[in-house]
């Protein structure tokens, strides 16, 4: 039973950590894009570039963080 609880907790923490990481990365991506645009006379990135890029960064970073976080969380939980 405690194993199941632990596993459930681990899953929940992993999801939260992955979501947070991915959202942060997507925000960072957007922030950098806006920063680049605001530093120029003619913006380099269109809104579509930024939004699509955020989605792509979010998807890739979810994949990456969902693979990395479980091991980290498991170590912390022990």
């Amino acid at each position, binding site marked *: 039973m405690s*194993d199941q609880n632990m*596993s459930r907790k681990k*899953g929940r923490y*992993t999801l939260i950590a992955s979501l947070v990481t991915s959202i942060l990365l997507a925000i960072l*991506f957007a922030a*950098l*894009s806006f920063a*680049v645009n605001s530093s120029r006379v003619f913006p*380099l*990135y*269109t*809104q*579509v*570039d*930024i939004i*699509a*890029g955020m989605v*792509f*960064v979010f*998807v*890739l*970073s979810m*994949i*990456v963080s*969902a*693979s*990395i976080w*479980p091991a980290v969380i498991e170590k912390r939980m022990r």
Partner: protein
Amino acid sequence: MNTKIKVHGMTCMHCHKRVTDAILAIGGVSSVDVSLEDESAIVEFDPGKTSLEEIRQAVTDAGYEAGAEECRLPEAAAQEQACRVIPDEVMDEASSRKKPEPGTVEDAIFRISGMKCSSCAQNIEGILGKHEGVISATVNLPLERATVRYEPAKVSPEELAEDIESLGYHVVKDRVTLDVGGMTCASCAQNVEKVLKRLEGISSVNVNVSMGKARIEYNSSVVSVDDMRKAIEAIGYSASMPVDRQLAEDRERKEREDEIRRQRNNLIISVAIAIPVMLGSLKPVFPDLFGFVPDILANRNVLFLLTTIVMVFPGRQFFEGTYRGLKHGVTDMNLLIATGTGAAYVISVASSYLELGPGYHHLYYDTAVMLIAFIVLGRYMEARARGRTSESIKKLIGLQAKTARIIVDGQEKEVPVESVEVDDIVFVRPGEKIPVDGVVVDGASAVDESMITGESIPVDKSKGDVVIGSTLNRSGALKLMATNVGADTALARIIELVENAQNSKAPIQRVADVVAGHFILIVHILALAAFFFWYFIGFERYDVTLNSGIASPFLFALLISITVLVISCPCAVGLATPAAIMVGTGKGAENGILIKGGEALERTLKIDTIVFDKTGTLTKGNPELTDVVTVAGLSSDELLVMAASAEVGSEHPLGEAIVRGAEQRKLKLKDVEDFRSIAGKGVEATIEGSRILLGTRKLMADNGIDIASVEKTMESLEAQGRTAMIAAMDGRLAGLVAVADTLKENSKEAVEKIRGMGIEVVMITGDNRRTADAIAGSIGITRVLAEVLPEDKASEIRKLQDEGRIVAMVGDGINDAPALTQADIGIAMGAGTDVAMESAQIVLIRNDLRDVIASIRLSRLTMNKIKQNLFWAFGYNTIGIPLAAGLLYPVVKTILISPELAAAFMAMSSVSVTTNSMLMKRKKIK
């Protein structure tokens, strides 16, 4: 508890890792070994903490299909309590166990290994004869059998077997694995064990409740499989022989064929659609070149429709695989493809139907379709190739005869081969397969043994010769007595050995496993890094809009990122080693060379020294009498009679040669009194009142006999490679008797070739230095370990290893088993003995020295293939990924690898690794 379950749906090393992780996560699982090639997982677990069902569920949850083979498990505790406790009386009744009536007589036959000479047989007869309750004991040396008539009231077959083993011989037991149904808990297992152990003739029982199997060691002359089945059924369980291996093989083949068919259909759909999509996509870009393409194909609605068909049908497998994986937090190569194709598809659909602004007018439908077409092509070719890598084992299984014609009450009766029992007389007509291993009792024929030994010339067989099951009887009818049946036949043991070898891992694979296990994660990190770089830095710095015509930084970075994802191929890394091992060990088996797995292959590559046992390996192992030199007025016949009579009781092959020599001259031997064998020196006996000594210089020195007058002759004989023994009568020198073992025809050639390979050849023998040097010199061996007692051979090997050498030992596996085990690689010649099979890492079925060279060549070939495969797999990814990430873009100002090209490379990488392994089949190793 060890359990093997089938796991379907694994395609790459990431699947491997996913299944391994899923099973290991279960509490109570202590180890798991997942085989991608075999599509199975061997799980060691504590049945008290988990169950097979949970393991199967974990596999299913991980997104794979747990195999159809169902194993019954211990149910809940309540059910366990409800289990029957079977009283002893019922057990006794079930096992038909009654107290033996005094005076009842029964016969038991024991198969014995380790006997070398008639003295061994005499020893066994002696010890058995002394046992109370034994009426008679007869040992047949060539058949390696002891037939004992005994009173069961006074002695049991197990006690007789113990007596034989107490002399240092090995009683070979029959083995069978029965499927036992109806067991629900540990007490059921105990019930079955108990009832089987009560049967006479059963030496060990191991019941696995989760597998529903009972593995039994027994003496088939005392108890039959049918008796066991009846005993198990009598206590309420069912028992049957396991499903035929052929049927299991057929099922696997069907599954593989289904996969090939599925991928072929996917390929046809994707290629059929990819062509119009490609043409339609290229028409707007190159209107002059593709003017012949109907406008409708360039219509975005048509392109969308066609691409969607590809995504939904052939492409669905990647998205389903990804979904299954992500649901359980794991990733695999499906994700790489799904991310790549999905991104291309989504951006194309968005561009088709939304106003995304400048740079978003280009569509990537062709990219998505071509990606899927290439990947499906790769999967189709891989499925075909993987089936072929295990062809050798299928061929071996296919060799087994299905029926046998046994003689019952003088009548021929055709029965399934599984029903043939040891000692049955089997009749084989010309052109038929010999169903089981046996000894010819009547008839003569030429037998084609090429399927087992690789030797293409048929071997003549007549009465007394041993025949191997599954070989082909060519010319005449044979009657043979079955000696090994079922799982004990040479072919069954070869199949088991090859299967185990093919499932084994070479140490070199560990690197590949580690890399493949983290591959997907690394690739995604690289894809993300490449995306960031090209989006924020590269796009503007390297004037991408100008050079490539792509106006959107996102689209360019996305293309690069997709290419990185698609070009990475973990499959090639995962397949590199197992594919080569499967083909290599399979090729070995076809040539009569059995290699026990990847570790043996890898170690064989490193050997720098080969030690050959002399007798039976370099020589024929049948020494012959060559010289009789007399002094002191005796005639040569008189001296030979004296020497042969003294040696009659000897177990030594040299002594036997002298006795044979006397018999060939038709000399009548004399009665011997007080025979004594003096280890390492010779024999002492009293004949007609005279004290006879026959042996070495040391024996004579110990007895104060002057041998100066024959010393020169003796040295001369020894220099010719002959073993001279000094004979003395009543304290006076009587003469010399010399014997010599003939070298095998191909010994010299084999030694020369091995030396040509840069390997030092060493000979080890118990012969004296001069004789050993002479024999070694005649075949070009310079280093000789002479005067080594059999028990010291292993320590001599250790000394060589202490010199830093990687040593292979070649022997016949009978008296040099410890040395074979001590050596880095033990090579046993002539696979007839269980000892050889167990103690050596390489077993040569034929007694041919050239097979030693072939086994080294095969090991080198296989290891080279593994290295080539790993080089290609790693090299492909090492070069492909940076190129895909646009490393050379600043120099060449264009995208070198498009996503479509990356998909083609990815598809080809695993196919090339498998094909490269299969090329080994064409290489000659002999």
